[in-house]
């Protein structure tokens, strides 16, 4: 293959056609039974069956993915799909890969083939699924920690909960590499969010040359930035700065990176489904753990500690947030042994609703 010339490209290009219609992508058993499924049954964390009104069955093998996939790896998956799944494959909303087949006997073969390729089966039912995450140092300018590296380190450690061990309920881990929170970690059972913790440093000489002052001022969501006419640059009010890095986005000489201060916070107890208690936000469990690549052992053990405390203490079907709701946050801190700090106390817009307005609580 060779690159198209400008000419060729102009001739070929189309616009506003949108994605291919999904109907072209569906395995025949899905097309046939579309909207007519009756029930499903989970066999193992990696396998389940859906049964249609018609009696048709579709077996699904779900396998893990690091989300960053080389084309070569995807091709390997497509080969499996060609071999066992009539040439169809699917990705889930949490970046796992699903192989579907109407032939039960293919299930172990698919599992084996995927595992051989490096992608183990799991993630279905009451356990851990893939950890949703974002770009990190691999691609984003804003990242206060890497994404994929942390995820790999964490998932290696909690791996059995993906492939075999059960938890009281589905448990959703997520990671966002900065407070923009592209991972939408704000409603996860347990999420890692990378944070900066210091006001960015300004290289005034470079600002003068590289940045538009009004744009830079406008980029700050808390209006912490004001002009510094003497230096033909800007200054930052440290009491207002929330270390979001928006200024850095538009003006790289305002450097938000602080290798020794950046790190991650851990938030817990969020969910999105309306089942039982309804959707909940994740709340702060640990305000800061330092970046310690390549394997972030402190983060990994903090995650494990919370997960295992939950696994031992929660009732069946109770999500992390429901469990904490029942026992109370004061018990959460006691049982996990996590220190409670000033950072845990809300001082943001809606702080009021987080203060305890009751004389009833646990010691």
């Amino acid at each position, binding site marked *: 293959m*060779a*690159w198209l*010339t*400008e000419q060729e*490209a102009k001739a*070929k*290009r189309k*616009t*506003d056609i949108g*994605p*291919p219609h*999904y109907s*072209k*992508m569906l395995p025949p058993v899905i097309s046939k039974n579309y909207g007519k499924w009756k*029930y*499903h049954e989970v066999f193992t964390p990696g396998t389940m069956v*859906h049964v249609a009104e018609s009696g048709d069955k579709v077996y699904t093998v779900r396998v893990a*993915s690091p*989300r*960053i*996939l*080389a084309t070569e*790896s*995807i091709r390997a998956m497509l080969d499996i799909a060609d071999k066992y799944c009539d040439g*169809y*494959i699917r990705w889930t*909303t949490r*970046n796992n890969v699903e192989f*579907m087949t109407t032939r039960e006997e293919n299930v172990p073969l698919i599992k084996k083939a995927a595992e051989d390729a*490096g992608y183990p089966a799991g993630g279905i039912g009451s356990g851990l699924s893939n950890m949703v995450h*974002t770009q990190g*140092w691999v*691609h984003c*300018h*804003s*990242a206060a920690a*890497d994404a*994929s*590296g942390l995820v*790999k380190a964490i998932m*290696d450690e909690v791996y059995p909960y993906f492939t075999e061990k059960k938890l009281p309920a589905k448990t959703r881990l997520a990671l966002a590499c900065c*407070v923009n929170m592209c991972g*939408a970690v*704000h409603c996860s059972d347990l999420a890692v969010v990378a944070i900066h913790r210091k006001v960015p440093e300004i290289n005034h000489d470079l600002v003068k040359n590289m940045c538009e002052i009004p744009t830079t001022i406008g980029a700050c969501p808390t209006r912490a930035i004001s002009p510094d006419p003497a230096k033909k640059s800007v200054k930052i009010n440290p009491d207002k700065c929330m270390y979001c890095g928006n200024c*850095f*986005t538009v003006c790289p000489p305002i450097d938000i*990176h*602080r*290798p020794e201060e*950046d790190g991650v916070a851990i938030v817990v107890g969020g969910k*999105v*489904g*309306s089942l*039982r*208690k*309804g959707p909940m936000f994740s709340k702060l469990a640990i305000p800061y753990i330092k970046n310690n690549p390549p*394997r972030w052992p402190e983060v990994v053990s903090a995650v494990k500690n919370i997960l295992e405390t939950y696994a031992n203490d929660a009732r*069946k*079907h109770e999500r992390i947030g429901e469990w904490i709701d029942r026992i109370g946050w004061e018990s959460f801190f006691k049982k996990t042994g996590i220190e409670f700090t000033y950072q845990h106390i809300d001082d943001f*817009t809606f702080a009021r609703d987080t203060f305890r307005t009751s004389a009833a609580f646990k010691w």
Partner: protein
Amino acid sequence: MKKYETPLLNELEKGPWPSFVKELKKAAKTSEMANDEVGQLEKSFRDKRGYWKHGGIVGVLGYGGGVIGRYSSLPNEFPGVAHFHTVRINQPSGMFYKTDSLRTILDLWDEYGSGLTNMHGSTGDMVLLGCRTEALEPLFAEVTSRGWDLGGSGSALRTPACCVGKARCEWANIDAMDICNDLTQTYQDYVHRPAWPYKFKFKIAGCAVDCVASIARADCSIIGTWKGNIAVDQDVVKDYAKAGMNINAEIVGMCPTGCMSYDGKTLTIDDENCSRCMHCISKMTKALRPTGERGASILIGSKAPIVVGSLLSWVIVPFMKMEPPYTELKELAEKIWEWWDDNAKPRERIGEVIELKGMRSFLEAIGVPPQPQQVLAPRKDPFFFWKDEDLNGKK
């Protein structure tokens, strides 16, 4: 090709979970770009910081979005990532793929880019990771000529996403994939040409289980529901009991409305008090089924925390029928956008604007009456406003 020592990244090739480092290195075998990505990443791991610069505007002719411009801040050291833009390819609704169809994209990407992907991005796109500016136009021509298109970025309609819905789930009350596809196609212009105060996201879930997290990360969350009873197959209830399910603890006792009871034989649901939360149905799928009319609840406004704190979506229309061509939904969406456009300052999401301007002004503008389903609880403080029309003729 430059050979990087990667003692830190190597650590992440170990362990049972699939390794992104292996993926990067697979691509690096043939791609200079991917190779320099590995080099720069090793340096990031060593220095505990990223080395990227935000992109400014890069893209394809006639589109305002679909590409995220990104440049290394160390282009001399890592020339392969001097440009390292991402290209968002709009996924087919539901993320099913015919293998040959997907292979087409892979082949193109090996030619024009780094060979690295995200399957998928958090919004739902297929993300092609790492591309030079000059590759964008030809890549776009190749991709579109094969029936694919870019997804959204910038202050635009973002690529809509949905759960697997009717394709493989017994609980879908609405055709999430079809709605997703229809909205995507209808609003191609809004996806590709950012013209709004900020981004706007649709996510569509077939039921309140919300397997696409729509309620947490969509400016408009469309969630299937029903008006009718839950049919109980008592024989199957007995099977569950026999199989060891503690029905009182696991089902009845966890029903949030307390509308279920079980006497050891018969499971009874007081349907009028059921809030359709899906707990019991999801845990006893063979025994319980919704019946009656199907439709969706429309919710508005969820987003990530910047600036005023994260939001979950708010119920606006408790129930709307969902039949193609989804005219009522589209009319509503268009009224929402109009009001948003009229009232938002740049970079204000719809939820933020509703909060600033008041729910009433929003509801009046989109023609939706007040209903108790819109609130968890009515207001507390007695500082409510009265318009002249409220005072005249009322009470």
